[in-house]
């Protein structure tokens, strides 16, 4: 009895250490998205670039596509931009841009300066689409399947590694799914 009770603090401490170690592996910034597998909400955004395109829900539906939320004020967007440019040049997947909470002229200038990987671009000035998507910040990227459902959400910049390890396999899987 005495031996057991003298080891008790050690055991309790060990349990707490295990709990804390597990806590370290859990990144609270990685929020689960409530929108996964849900249909893309309706939206109709005004254009950003010189061409009068804009972006609405119907533009995105039909093939596997990506919606990338960016802004001229967004630092992380500059990091992922070359990755999107490369994918766009290779014609890998249509990428639609949402210029979020941004001055439209600044957004357009940013695209001229850093390159424009987008099939269409729309401006979301009052976060109407952002809140409908469950957006938490920029950059954020959504992968949409053929039926128009949100299947994956990338929070933060897409690096080359994230593209190869995460994005590409999801795109391939969704492309293999029937129409």
């Amino acid at each position, binding site marked *: 009895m005495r031996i057991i009770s003298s080891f008790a603090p050690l055991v309790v401490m060990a349990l707490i250490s295990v709990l804390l170690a597990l806590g370290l592996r859990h990144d609270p910034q990685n*929020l689960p*998205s*409530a929108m996964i597998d849900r249909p893309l909400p309706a939206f109709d955004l005004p254009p950003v670039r010189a061409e009068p395109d804009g972006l609405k829900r119907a533009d995105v539906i039909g093939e596997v596509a990506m919606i990338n939320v960016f802004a001229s004020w967004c630092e992380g967007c500059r990091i992922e931009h070359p990755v999107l440019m490369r994918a766009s040049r290779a014609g890998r997947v249509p990428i639609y841009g949402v210029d979020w*909470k941004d001055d439209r002229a600044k957004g357009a200038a940013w695209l001229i300066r850093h390159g424009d990987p987008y099939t269409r671009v729309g401006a979301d000035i*009052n*976060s109407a689409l*952002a*809140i409908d998507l*469950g*957006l938490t910040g920029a950059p954020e990227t959504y992968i949409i399947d053929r039926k128009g459902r949100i299947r994956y959400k990338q929070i933060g910049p897409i690096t080359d590694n994230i593209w190869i390890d995460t994005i590409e396999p999801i795109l391939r899987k969704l492309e293999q799914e029937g129409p």
Partner: protein
Amino acid sequence: MTQFRAFLIFIMMFGAFSQTAYAALPDEVLADPILEARARNLSKTLRCVVCKNQSIDDSNAPLARDMRLLVRERLVAGDSDSQVRDYLVARYGNFILLRPPLQPNTLLLWLAPAIFTLLGFIGFAIFMRRSKAIQAEQIKPLSPEEQTKLAKIEQGQEK
């Protein structure tokens, strides 16, 4: 006494000012004071998803502002408080609520204070019982040898 009353008034004024200091931005405030009060109370229960540990009422993040406006828009459109909350939960999950709802996966969270209080009481009871047992052991009657020894000490024959 008058001094004390003045002090009280001063404290109350201070409270009133601190209320307005945290208010939504002037251009967001609704004309209807009842709706505005509902919007403020609702905003205090909603998490700013940019800053994580602030309510959208406290936060000055642009997204929090847009959410405050959305809350007001929906209240004006006639939504109930819980409809507005559900609207945001549908998009952001329970994470958007600063006060987690009572449901199977949060049961442990909500019961934890009661469980730990109970454990504390049990620990305290065990401790009390043990110290009583030790006391009981300490005041058990002297053995015959001890008694003769004590008697000798009392007579001053031994130190």
